[in-house]
Protein backbone atom coordinates (compact mmCIF):
# COMPACT_ATOMS: atom_id res chain seq x y z
CA UNK A 1 0.00 0.00 0.00
CA UNK A 2 2.84 2.32 0.85
CA UNK A 3 4.49 1.82 -2.53
CA UNK A 4 1.18 2.37 -4.32
CA UNK A 5 0.75 5.77 -2.69
CA UNK A 6 4.31 6.72 -3.41
CA UNK A 7 3.97 5.91 -7.05
CA UNK A 8 0.82 7.97 -7.25
CA UNK A 9 2.74 11.06 -6.07
CA UNK A 10 0.16 11.81 -3.46
CA UNK A 11 -0.25 15.59 -3.06
CA UNK A 12 0.39 17.09 0.38
CA UNK A 13 -3.18 18.31 0.69
CA UNK A 14 -6.21 16.99 -1.12
CA UNK A 15 -8.58 19.91 -0.84
CA UNK A 16 -11.60 17.81 -1.76
CA UNK A 17 -10.91 15.68 1.32
CA UNK A 18 -10.87 18.82 3.45
CA UNK A 19 -14.16 19.91 1.91
CA UNK A 20 -15.74 16.52 2.53
CA UNK A 21 -14.63 16.35 6.14
CA UNK A 22 -15.46 19.77 7.57
CA UNK A 23 -17.61 18.14 10.22
CA UNK A 24 -14.79 15.88 11.36
CA UNK A 25 -12.38 18.82 11.42
CA UNK A 26 -14.81 20.92 13.45
CA UNK A 27 -15.19 18.04 15.89
CA UNK A 28 -11.43 17.78 16.21
CA UNK A 29 -11.21 21.51 16.87
CA UNK A 30 -13.91 21.34 19.54
CA UNK A 31 -12.23 18.43 21.29
CA UNK A 32 -8.83 20.06 21.06
CA UNK A 33 -10.12 23.23 22.70
CA UNK A 34 -11.92 21.27 25.38
CA UNK A 35 -8.89 19.16 26.29
CA UNK A 36 -6.69 22.25 26.41
CA UNK A 37 -9.04 24.44 28.43
CA UNK A 38 -9.80 21.74 30.99
CA UNK A 39 -6.11 20.90 31.43
CA UNK A 40 -4.92 24.48 31.77
CA UNK A 41 -7.78 25.43 34.09
CA UNK A 42 -7.15 22.53 36.46
CA UNK A 43 -3.41 23.09 36.26
CA UNK A 44 -3.87 26.78 36.97
CA UNK A 45 -5.95 26.23 40.09
CA UNK A 46 -3.55 23.62 41.44
CA UNK A 47 -0.48 25.73 40.65
CA UNK A 48 -1.96 28.80 42.28
CA UNK A 49 -2.72 26.90 45.46
CA UNK A 50 0.81 25.48 45.45
CA UNK A 51 2.21 28.96 44.83
CA UNK A 52 0.38 30.40 47.82
CA UNK A 53 1.81 27.62 49.94
CA UNK A 54 5.30 28.18 48.54
CA UNK A 55 5.21 31.91 49.13
CA UNK A 56 3.85 31.60 52.64
CA UNK A 57 6.13 28.76 53.71
CA UNK A 58 9.35 29.30 51.77
CA UNK A 59 10.91 25.95 52.53
CA UNK A 60 8.12 24.20 50.63
CA UNK A 61 9.08 25.77 47.30
CA UNK A 62 12.03 23.52 46.53
CA UNK A 63 10.22 20.24 47.17
CA UNK A 64 7.08 21.44 45.35
CA UNK A 65 9.05 22.59 42.32
CA UNK A 66 11.04 19.37 42.51
CA UNK A 67 7.92 17.22 42.29
CA UNK A 68 6.65 19.33 39.41
CA UNK A 69 9.91 19.02 37.49
CA UNK A 70 9.84 15.27 37.93
CA UNK A 71 6.31 15.23 36.51
CA UNK A 72 7.48 17.48 33.72
CA UNK A 73 10.39 15.21 32.86
CA UNK A 74 8.28 12.06 32.55
CA UNK A 75 7.53 11.42 28.88
CA UNK A 76 3.85 11.68 28.04
CA UNK A 77 3.85 8.30 26.37
CA UNK A 78 5.29 6.72 29.51
CA UNK A 79 2.64 8.37 31.64
CA UNK A 80 -0.06 7.19 29.26
CA UNK A 81 1.38 3.71 29.43
CA UNK A 82 1.19 3.57 33.22
CA UNK A 83 -2.24 5.24 33.46
CA UNK A 84 -3.78 3.08 30.75
CA UNK A 85 -3.01 0.00 32.78
CA UNK A 86 -5.00 1.41 35.72
CA UNK A 87 -8.72 0.65 35.18
CA UNK A 88 -9.96 3.96 36.63
CA UNK A 89 -8.07 5.87 33.95
CA UNK A 90 -7.85 3.48 31.00
CA UNK A 91 -7.95 4.73 27.44
CA UNK A 92 -9.63 8.10 27.28
CA UNK A 93 -10.29 11.51 28.73
CA UNK A 94 -9.04 10.97 32.29
CA UNK A 95 -5.68 9.58 31.24
CA UNK A 96 -5.23 12.38 28.71
CA UNK A 97 -6.06 15.07 31.26
CA UNK A 98 -3.83 13.72 34.00
CA UNK A 99 -0.88 13.85 31.63
CA UNK A 100 -1.77 17.28 30.25
CA UNK A 101 -2.35 18.80 33.69
CA UNK A 102 0.87 17.43 35.09
CA UNK A 103 2.87 19.14 32.33
CA UNK A 104 1.36 22.55 33.01
CA UNK A 105 2.25 22.54 36.71
CA UNK A 106 5.96 23.32 36.57
CA UNK A 107 5.55 26.19 34.11
CA UNK A 108 2.62 27.69 35.98
CA UNK A 109 4.05 27.23 39.48
CA UNK A 110 7.33 28.96 38.60
CA UNK A 111 5.60 31.95 37.12
CA UNK A 112 2.99 32.18 39.87
CA UNK A 113 5.70 32.22 42.51
CA UNK A 114 7.82 34.69 40.54
CA UNK A 115 4.83 36.99 40.25
CA UNK A 116 3.74 36.78 43.88
CA UNK A 117 7.33 37.14 45.01
CA UNK A 118 7.79 40.20 42.87
CA UNK A 119 5.19 42.19 44.78
CA UNK A 120 7.32 44.87 46.45
CA UNK A 121 7.40 44.76 50.22
CA UNK A 122 6.45 48.45 50.57
CA UNK A 123 3.31 47.80 48.52
CA UNK A 124 2.40 44.95 50.83
CA UNK A 125 3.01 47.15 53.83
CA UNK A 126 0.96 49.96 52.38
CA UNK A 127 -1.86 47.52 51.70
CA UNK A 128 -1.70 46.27 55.26
CA UNK A 129 -1.70 49.83 56.47
CA UNK A 130 -4.87 50.45 54.51
CA UNK A 131 -6.51 47.51 56.21
CA UNK A 132 -5.98 44.80 53.62
CA UNK A 133 -5.09 41.68 55.50
CA UNK A 134 -4.82 37.97 54.81
CA UNK A 135 -6.79 36.66 51.86
CA UNK A 136 -8.27 40.04 51.11
CA UNK A 137 -4.80 41.44 50.53
CA UNK A 138 -3.79 38.44 48.46
CA UNK A 139 -6.84 38.78 46.22
CA UNK A 140 -6.98 42.56 45.95
CA UNK A 141 -3.29 43.48 45.97
CA UNK A 142 -0.87 40.59 45.47
CA UNK A 143 -2.69 38.77 42.69
CA UNK A 144 -3.29 41.81 40.48
CA UNK A 145 0.35 42.81 40.77
CA UNK A 146 1.47 39.28 39.98
CA UNK A 147 -0.77 39.15 36.92
CA UNK A 148 1.84 39.80 34.20
CA UNK A 149 4.04 36.96 35.38
CA UNK A 150 1.09 34.62 35.95
CA UNK A 151 -0.29 35.42 32.51
CA UNK A 152 3.09 34.73 30.94
CA UNK A 153 3.02 31.32 32.57
CA UNK A 154 -0.51 30.69 31.34
CA UNK A 155 0.48 31.59 27.81
CA UNK A 156 3.42 29.21 27.74
CA UNK A 157 1.46 26.44 29.45
CA UNK A 158 -1.45 26.81 27.04
CA UNK A 159 0.66 26.84 23.89
CA UNK A 160 2.59 23.82 25.15
CA UNK A 161 -0.61 22.01 26.05
CA UNK A 162 -2.13 22.62 22.62
CA UNK A 163 0.86 20.82 21.14
CA UNK A 164 0.72 18.00 23.65
CA UNK A 165 -2.98 17.40 23.08
CA UNK A 166 -2.14 15.92 19.67
CA UNK A 167 -0.27 13.11 21.41
CA UNK A 168 -3.33 12.16 23.44
CA UNK A 169 -4.74 10.69 20.23
CA UNK A 170 -2.79 7.60 21.24
CA UNK A 171 -5.17 7.07 24.14
CA UNK A 172 -8.23 7.77 22.04
CA UNK A 173 -8.59 11.54 22.52
CA UNK A 174 -6.43 14.03 20.72
CA UNK A 175 -8.47 16.68 18.90
CA UNK A 176 -6.42 17.47 15.82
CA UNK A 177 -4.12 14.65 16.87
CA UNK A 178 -6.87 12.27 15.81
CA UNK A 179 -6.55 13.53 12.26
CA UNK A 180 -2.78 13.21 12.43
CA UNK A 181 -3.02 9.69 13.77
CA UNK A 182 -5.55 8.82 11.11
CA UNK A 183 -3.28 10.08 8.34
CA UNK A 184 -0.29 8.33 9.86
CA UNK A 185 -2.16 5.03 9.97
CA UNK A 186 -3.17 5.27 6.33
CA UNK A 187 -0.02 6.98 5.08
CA UNK A 188 -2.28 9.74 3.82
CA UNK A 189 -0.75 13.21 4.25
CA UNK A 190 -3.86 15.39 3.99
CA UNK A 191 -5.29 14.79 7.47
CA UNK A 192 -1.78 15.07 8.92
CA UNK A 193 -1.33 18.50 7.38
CA UNK A 194 -4.81 19.60 8.44
CA UNK A 195 -4.19 18.38 11.99
CA UNK A 196 -0.75 19.97 12.24
CA UNK A 197 -1.83 23.30 10.81
CA UNK A 198 -4.98 23.29 12.93
CA UNK A 199 -2.99 22.65 16.08
CA UNK A 200 -0.45 25.37 15.31
CA UNK A 201 -3.14 27.90 14.42
CA UNK A 202 -5.02 27.07 17.60
CA UNK A 203 -1.86 27.65 19.63
CA UNK A 204 -1.39 31.04 17.99
CA UNK A 205 -5.02 31.99 18.59
CA UNK A 206 -4.78 31.05 22.27
CA UNK A 207 -1.55 33.02 22.56
CA UNK A 208 -3.12 36.14 21.05
CA UNK A 209 -6.17 35.68 23.24
CA UNK A 210 -3.97 35.79 26.32
CA UNK A 211 -2.26 38.94 25.10
CA UNK A 212 -5.67 40.52 24.74
CA UNK A 213 -6.88 39.34 28.14
CA UNK A 214 -3.72 40.60 29.80
CA UNK A 215 -4.19 44.01 28.20
CA UNK A 216 -7.74 44.16 29.43
CA UNK A 217 -7.08 43.12 33.00
CA UNK A 218 -3.85 45.08 33.52
CA UNK A 219 -4.68 48.49 32.08
CA UNK A 220 -1.92 50.05 34.16
CA UNK A 221 0.77 48.12 32.31
CA UNK A 222 0.07 50.03 29.12
CA UNK A 223 0.37 53.33 30.93
CA UNK A 224 3.97 52.27 31.40
CA UNK A 225 3.76 52.81 35.12
CA UNK A 226 3.79 49.66 37.21
CA UNK A 227 1.78 50.37 40.35
CA UNK A 228 3.96 50.94 43.33
CA UNK A 229 7.06 51.39 41.25
CA UNK A 230 8.91 54.14 39.48
CA UNK A 231 7.70 57.05 41.52
CA UNK A 232 9.33 55.83 44.67
CA UNK A 233 12.75 57.12 45.47
CA UNK A 234 14.84 54.12 46.38
CA UNK A 235 16.89 53.05 43.38
CA UNK A 236 17.12 49.39 44.21
CA UNK A 237 13.38 49.10 44.34
CA UNK A 238 13.01 50.92 41.12
CA UNK A 239 14.97 48.30 39.27
CA UNK A 240 13.15 45.48 40.97
CA UNK A 241 9.69 46.64 39.98
CA UNK A 242 10.57 47.42 36.43
CA UNK A 243 12.09 44.01 36.06
CA UNK A 244 9.11 41.98 37.13
CA UNK A 245 6.78 42.34 34.20
CA UNK A 246 9.39 42.87 31.52
CA UNK A 247 11.06 39.46 31.48
CA UNK A 248 7.78 37.74 32.15
CA UNK A 249 6.35 39.21 28.99
CA UNK A 250 9.18 37.92 26.87
CA UNK A 251 8.87 34.33 27.84
CA UNK A 252 8.63 33.26 31.42
CA UNK A 253 10.33 30.61 33.45
CA UNK A 254 13.93 29.94 32.74
CA UNK A 255 16.82 27.99 34.09
CA UNK A 256 17.67 27.50 37.69
CA UNK A 257 15.53 24.49 38.45
CA UNK A 258 17.13 24.40 41.83
CA UNK A 259 16.93 28.08 42.55
CA UNK A 260 14.80 29.06 45.51
CA UNK A 261 12.59 32.11 45.26
CA UNK A 262 15.26 34.46 46.46
CA UNK A 263 15.35 38.20 46.52
CA UNK A 264 15.29 38.46 42.75
CA UNK A 265 13.05 35.79 41.34
CA UNK A 266 11.92 37.67 38.30
CA UNK A 267 15.45 38.58 37.37
CA UNK A 268 16.59 35.02 37.81
CA UNK A 269 13.90 33.82 35.48
CA UNK A 270 14.18 36.62 33.04
CA UNK A 271 14.54 36.98 29.33
CA UNK A 272 13.88 34.85 26.38
CA UNK A 273 15.40 31.93 28.19
CA UNK A 274 11.97 30.57 28.98
CA UNK A 275 12.86 27.60 26.97
CA UNK A 276 10.58 25.14 28.66
CA UNK A 277 7.86 23.55 26.69
CA UNK A 278 7.55 22.27 23.20
CA UNK A 279 5.79 19.20 22.04
CA UNK A 280 6.95 15.81 22.96
Amino acid at each position, binding site marked *: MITALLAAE*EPLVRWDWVGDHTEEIADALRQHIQLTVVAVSIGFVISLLLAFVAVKWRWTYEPLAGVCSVLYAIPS*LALFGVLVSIPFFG*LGFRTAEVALVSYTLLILLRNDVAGLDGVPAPVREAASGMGFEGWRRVLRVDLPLATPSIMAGLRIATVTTVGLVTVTSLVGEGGFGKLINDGLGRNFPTP*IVVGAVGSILLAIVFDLLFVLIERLITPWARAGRPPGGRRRGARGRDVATVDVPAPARVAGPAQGRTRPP*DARPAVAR*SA*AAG*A*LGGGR
Partner: protein
Amino acid sequence: MSESWRQMLDYLGSDAAWSGRNGLPALTWAHVKISLVAMLIASAVAVPAGVVLGHVKRGALAAVTVVNIGRAIPSFAILALLLPFSLRYGFGLGFWPTIVALVLLAIPPIFTNTYTGVRDVPDDAVDAARGMGMRGVEQVRKVELPVAVPLILTGLRVSAVQVIATATLGALVGYRDLGTPIVSGFTSPDKGPLLAGAIAVALLALLTDALFAVVQRLAVPWRRTGRTADVTVAADTGPGGAAGPPVPPGAAGPAATGAAVTAA
Protein backbone atom coordinates in the same frame (compact mmCIF):
# COMPACT_ATOMS: atom_id res chain seq x y z
CA MET B 1 -4.22 -2.75 37.90
CA SER B 2 -2.56 -5.49 39.84
CA GLU B 3 -3.08 -7.70 36.80
CA SER B 4 -1.03 -5.36 34.63
CA TRP B 5 1.74 -5.14 37.18
CA ARG B 6 1.83 -8.91 37.48
CA GLN B 7 2.15 -9.07 33.71
CA MET B 8 5.06 -6.69 33.91
CA LEU B 9 6.81 -8.80 36.52
CA ASP B 10 6.23 -11.87 34.36
CA TYR B 11 7.65 -10.02 31.40
CA LEU B 12 10.67 -8.84 33.35
CA GLY B 13 11.26 -12.40 34.47
CA SER B 14 11.25 -13.72 30.92
CA ASP B 15 14.16 -13.95 28.50
CA ALA B 16 12.29 -11.82 25.96
CA ALA B 17 12.74 -8.79 28.18
CA TRP B 18 16.51 -8.98 28.26
CA SER B 19 17.67 -10.34 24.93
CA GLY B 20 17.14 -9.86 21.24
CA ARG B 21 16.30 -6.69 19.37
CA ASN B 22 13.03 -6.31 21.24
CA GLY B 23 14.66 -6.71 24.63
CA LEU B 24 14.89 -3.76 26.99
CA PRO B 25 18.68 -3.34 26.67
CA ALA B 26 18.53 -3.12 22.87
CA LEU B 27 15.55 -0.77 22.97
CA THR B 28 17.17 1.43 25.60
CA TRP B 29 20.38 1.64 23.61
CA ALA B 30 18.45 2.57 20.46
CA HIS B 31 16.63 5.24 22.46
CA VAL B 32 19.84 6.69 23.88
CA LYS B 33 21.59 6.51 20.52
CA ILE B 34 19.02 8.48 18.57
CA SER B 35 18.70 11.03 21.39
CA LEU B 36 22.46 11.53 21.52
CA VAL B 37 22.77 11.97 17.77
CA ALA B 38 19.88 14.45 17.78
CA MET B 39 21.43 16.42 20.63
CA LEU B 40 24.83 16.52 18.94
CA ILE B 41 23.38 17.80 15.67
CA ALA B 42 21.16 20.33 17.44
CA SER B 43 24.03 21.61 19.58
CA ALA B 44 26.32 21.87 16.58
CA VAL B 45 23.75 24.11 14.93
CA ALA B 46 22.30 26.04 17.85
CA VAL B 47 25.30 26.81 20.06
CA PRO B 48 27.48 28.53 17.44
CA ALA B 49 24.48 30.43 16.10
CA GLY B 50 23.51 31.56 19.59
CA VAL B 51 27.07 32.56 20.49
CA VAL B 52 27.60 34.60 17.33
CA LEU B 53 24.26 36.39 17.49
CA GLY B 54 24.61 36.92 21.24
CA HIS B 55 28.10 38.32 20.81
CA VAL B 56 27.00 40.90 18.25
CA LYS B 57 23.80 41.44 20.25
CA ARG B 58 21.56 41.06 17.26
CA GLY B 59 18.61 38.82 16.57
CA ALA B 60 16.54 39.23 19.73
CA LEU B 61 13.43 38.88 17.64
CA ALA B 62 14.78 35.70 16.07
CA ALA B 63 15.49 34.22 19.48
CA VAL B 64 12.01 34.85 20.80
CA THR B 65 10.38 33.76 17.56
CA VAL B 66 12.32 30.53 17.33
CA VAL B 67 11.38 29.51 20.83
CA ASN B 68 7.73 30.48 20.43
CA ILE B 69 7.34 28.67 17.14
CA GLY B 70 9.20 25.71 18.53
CA ARG B 71 6.71 25.58 21.34
CA ALA B 72 3.67 25.78 19.10
CA ILE B 73 4.67 23.08 16.64
CA PRO B 74 3.81 19.63 17.95
CA SER B 75 6.60 17.10 17.41
CA PHE B 76 3.96 14.50 16.78
CA ALA B 77 2.76 16.48 13.77
CA ILE B 78 6.31 16.92 12.47
CA LEU B 79 6.96 13.21 12.77
CA ALA B 80 3.74 12.37 11.00
CA LEU B 81 4.41 14.90 8.26
CA LEU B 82 7.97 13.73 7.69
CA LEU B 83 7.03 10.10 7.25
CA PRO B 84 5.49 10.37 3.78
CA PHE B 85 8.40 12.50 2.59
CA SER B 86 10.93 10.15 4.06
CA LEU B 87 9.27 7.26 2.30
CA ARG B 88 8.95 9.12 -0.96
CA TYR B 89 12.60 10.15 -1.08
CA GLY B 90 13.92 6.80 -0.03
CA PHE B 91 14.94 7.50 3.57
CA GLY B 92 12.56 4.86 4.79
CA LEU B 93 10.73 4.36 8.03
CA GLY B 94 11.97 5.07 11.49
CA PHE B 95 15.35 6.67 11.98
CA TRP B 96 15.31 9.63 9.61
CA PRO B 97 11.88 11.10 10.29
CA THR B 98 12.52 10.65 14.00
CA ILE B 99 15.92 12.28 14.04
CA VAL B 100 14.75 15.29 12.04
CA ALA B 101 11.82 15.84 14.41
CA LEU B 102 14.11 15.51 17.43
CA VAL B 103 16.68 17.95 16.06
CA LEU B 104 13.97 20.50 15.31
CA LEU B 105 12.63 20.02 18.83
CA ALA B 106 16.03 20.38 20.47
CA ILE B 107 17.24 23.49 18.67
CA PRO B 108 14.99 26.23 20.15
CA PRO B 109 15.86 25.84 23.85
CA ILE B 110 19.58 25.48 23.13
CA PHE B 111 19.67 28.41 20.73
CA THR B 112 17.63 30.78 22.87
CA ASN B 113 19.48 30.03 26.07
CA THR B 114 22.88 30.32 24.43
CA TYR B 115 21.88 33.55 22.76
CA THR B 116 20.48 35.07 25.95
CA GLY B 117 23.41 33.88 28.02
CA VAL B 118 26.03 35.39 25.74
CA ARG B 119 24.10 38.57 24.99
CA ASP B 120 23.40 39.33 28.63
CA VAL B 121 26.94 39.00 29.87
CA PRO B 122 27.25 42.09 32.08
CA ASP B 123 28.77 45.12 30.42
CA ASP B 124 31.22 45.43 33.30
CA ALA B 125 32.68 42.03 32.50
CA VAL B 126 32.92 42.81 28.79
CA ASP B 127 34.47 46.19 29.50
CA ALA B 128 37.01 44.60 31.81
CA ALA B 129 37.85 42.04 29.13
CA ARG B 130 38.31 44.76 26.54
CA GLY B 131 40.37 46.78 28.97
CA MET B 132 42.66 43.77 29.30
CA GLY B 133 43.11 43.83 25.56
CA MET B 134 40.75 41.05 24.59
CA ARG B 135 38.98 41.24 21.27
CA GLY B 136 36.67 39.08 19.21
CA VAL B 137 37.20 35.38 19.58
CA GLU B 138 39.31 35.69 22.71
CA GLN B 139 36.69 37.81 24.41
CA VAL B 140 34.03 35.23 23.55
CA ARG B 141 36.13 32.28 24.62
CA LYS B 142 37.54 33.62 27.86
CA VAL B 143 34.74 35.80 29.16
CA GLU B 144 31.39 35.55 27.42
CA LEU B 145 31.20 31.78 27.07
CA PRO B 146 32.21 30.96 30.66
CA VAL B 147 29.72 33.46 32.01
CA ALA B 148 27.01 32.04 29.74
CA VAL B 149 27.73 28.41 30.65
CA PRO B 150 25.00 28.01 33.27
CA LEU B 151 22.33 29.17 30.86
CA ILE B 152 23.70 27.12 27.97
CA LEU B 153 23.66 24.04 30.16
CA THR B 154 20.07 24.79 31.14
CA GLY B 155 19.16 24.91 27.47
CA LEU B 156 20.89 21.60 26.82
CA ARG B 157 19.16 20.09 29.83
CA VAL B 158 15.69 21.17 28.77
CA SER B 159 16.33 19.93 25.25
CA ALA B 160 17.82 16.63 26.32
CA VAL B 161 14.89 15.74 28.55
CA GLN B 162 12.43 16.66 25.82
CA VAL B 163 14.37 14.71 23.23
CA ILE B 164 14.37 11.58 25.41
CA ALA B 165 10.64 12.03 25.95
CA THR B 166 9.88 12.62 22.29
CA ALA B 167 12.10 9.86 20.94
CA THR B 168 9.36 7.62 22.33
CA LEU B 169 7.08 8.89 19.57
CA GLY B 170 9.55 7.59 17.01
CA ALA B 171 7.92 4.22 17.57
CA LEU B 172 4.89 5.58 15.71
CA VAL B 173 6.89 5.96 12.52
CA GLY B 174 8.66 2.66 12.87
CA TYR B 175 11.78 3.49 14.86
CA ARG B 176 12.38 0.70 17.31
CA ASP B 177 13.08 2.13 20.76
CA LEU B 178 11.48 2.20 24.20
CA GLY B 179 8.35 3.70 22.64
CA THR B 180 7.75 0.50 20.69
CA PRO B 181 6.45 -1.66 23.56
CA ILE B 182 4.36 1.29 24.78
CA VAL B 183 2.69 1.92 21.45
CA SER B 184 2.01 -1.72 20.70
CA GLY B 185 0.90 -2.24 24.30
CA PHE B 186 -2.03 0.18 24.05
CA THR B 187 -3.98 -2.33 22.00
CA SER B 188 -2.48 -5.52 23.39
CA PRO B 189 -4.05 -7.44 26.28
CA ASP B 190 -0.58 -8.07 27.70
CA LYS B 191 0.38 -4.84 29.47
CA GLY B 192 3.73 -6.23 30.68
CA PRO B 193 6.03 -4.81 27.98
CA LEU B 194 4.07 -1.55 27.94
CA LEU B 195 4.56 -0.91 31.65
CA ALA B 196 8.19 -1.97 31.55
CA GLY B 197 8.86 0.32 28.58
CA ALA B 198 6.99 3.22 30.16
CA ILE B 199 8.90 2.95 33.41
CA ALA B 200 12.18 2.58 31.55
CA VAL B 201 11.59 5.77 29.52
CA ALA B 202 10.52 7.69 32.60
CA LEU B 203 13.65 6.58 34.43
CA LEU B 204 15.79 7.45 31.43
CA ALA B 205 14.32 10.96 31.30
CA LEU B 206 14.75 11.51 35.02
CA LEU B 207 18.27 10.15 34.86
CA THR B 208 19.12 12.56 32.06
CA ASP B 209 17.72 15.43 34.07
CA ALA B 210 19.69 14.38 37.13
CA LEU B 211 22.85 13.94 35.06
CA PHE B 212 22.59 17.50 33.81
CA ALA B 213 21.97 18.72 37.34
CA VAL B 214 25.27 17.17 38.36
CA VAL B 215 27.08 18.56 35.32
CA GLN B 216 25.69 22.00 36.05
CA ARG B 217 26.96 21.81 39.59
CA LEU B 218 30.41 20.65 38.51
CA ALA B 219 30.73 23.03 35.60
CA VAL B 220 29.72 26.06 37.60
CA PRO B 221 31.53 25.73 40.92
CA TRP B 222 31.16 29.45 41.60
CA ARG B 223 27.38 29.16 41.68
CA ARG B 224 27.29 28.31 45.35
CA THR B 225 29.55 31.14 46.35
CA GLY B 226 27.59 33.34 43.98
CA ARG B 227 24.43 32.62 45.84
CA THR B 228 25.78 33.80 49.16
CA ALA B 229 27.02 36.93 47.46
CA ASP B 230 23.48 37.57 46.23
CA VAL B 231 22.15 37.33 49.74
CA THR B 232 24.69 39.85 50.94
CA VAL B 233 23.72 42.24 48.22
CA ALA B 234 20.05 41.91 48.99
CA ALA B 235 20.75 42.57 52.65
CA ASP B 236 22.89 45.60 51.84
CA THR B 237 20.23 47.37 49.84
CA GLY B 238 17.79 47.05 52.68
CA PRO B 239 14.19 45.88 52.70
CA GLY B 240 12.82 45.27 49.27
CA GLY B 241 16.16 46.01 47.74
CA ALA B 242 16.12 43.29 45.19
CA ALA B 243 19.45 42.51 43.67
CA GLY B 244 20.80 45.86 42.66
CA PRO B 245 21.29 46.16 38.91
CA PRO B 246 19.30 43.91 36.65
CA VAL B 247 21.71 41.03 36.49
CA PRO B 248 20.78 38.69 33.66
CA PRO B 249 19.66 35.21 34.58
CA GLY B 250 22.44 32.97 33.43
CA ALA B 251 25.09 35.49 34.20
CA ALA B 252 25.27 34.53 37.83
CA GLY B 253 28.90 33.80 37.17
CA PRO B 254 31.79 35.43 38.97
CA ALA B 255 31.58 38.49 36.81
CA ALA B 256 27.89 38.98 37.41
CA THR B 257 27.98 38.64 41.14
CA GLY B 258 31.08 40.76 41.19
CA ALA B 259 29.24 43.49 39.35
CA ALA B 260 26.29 43.23 41.70
CA VAL B 261 28.51 43.60 44.73
CA THR B 262 30.26 46.63 43.32
CA ALA B 263 27.02 48.33 42.46
CA ALA B 264 25.65 47.80 45.92
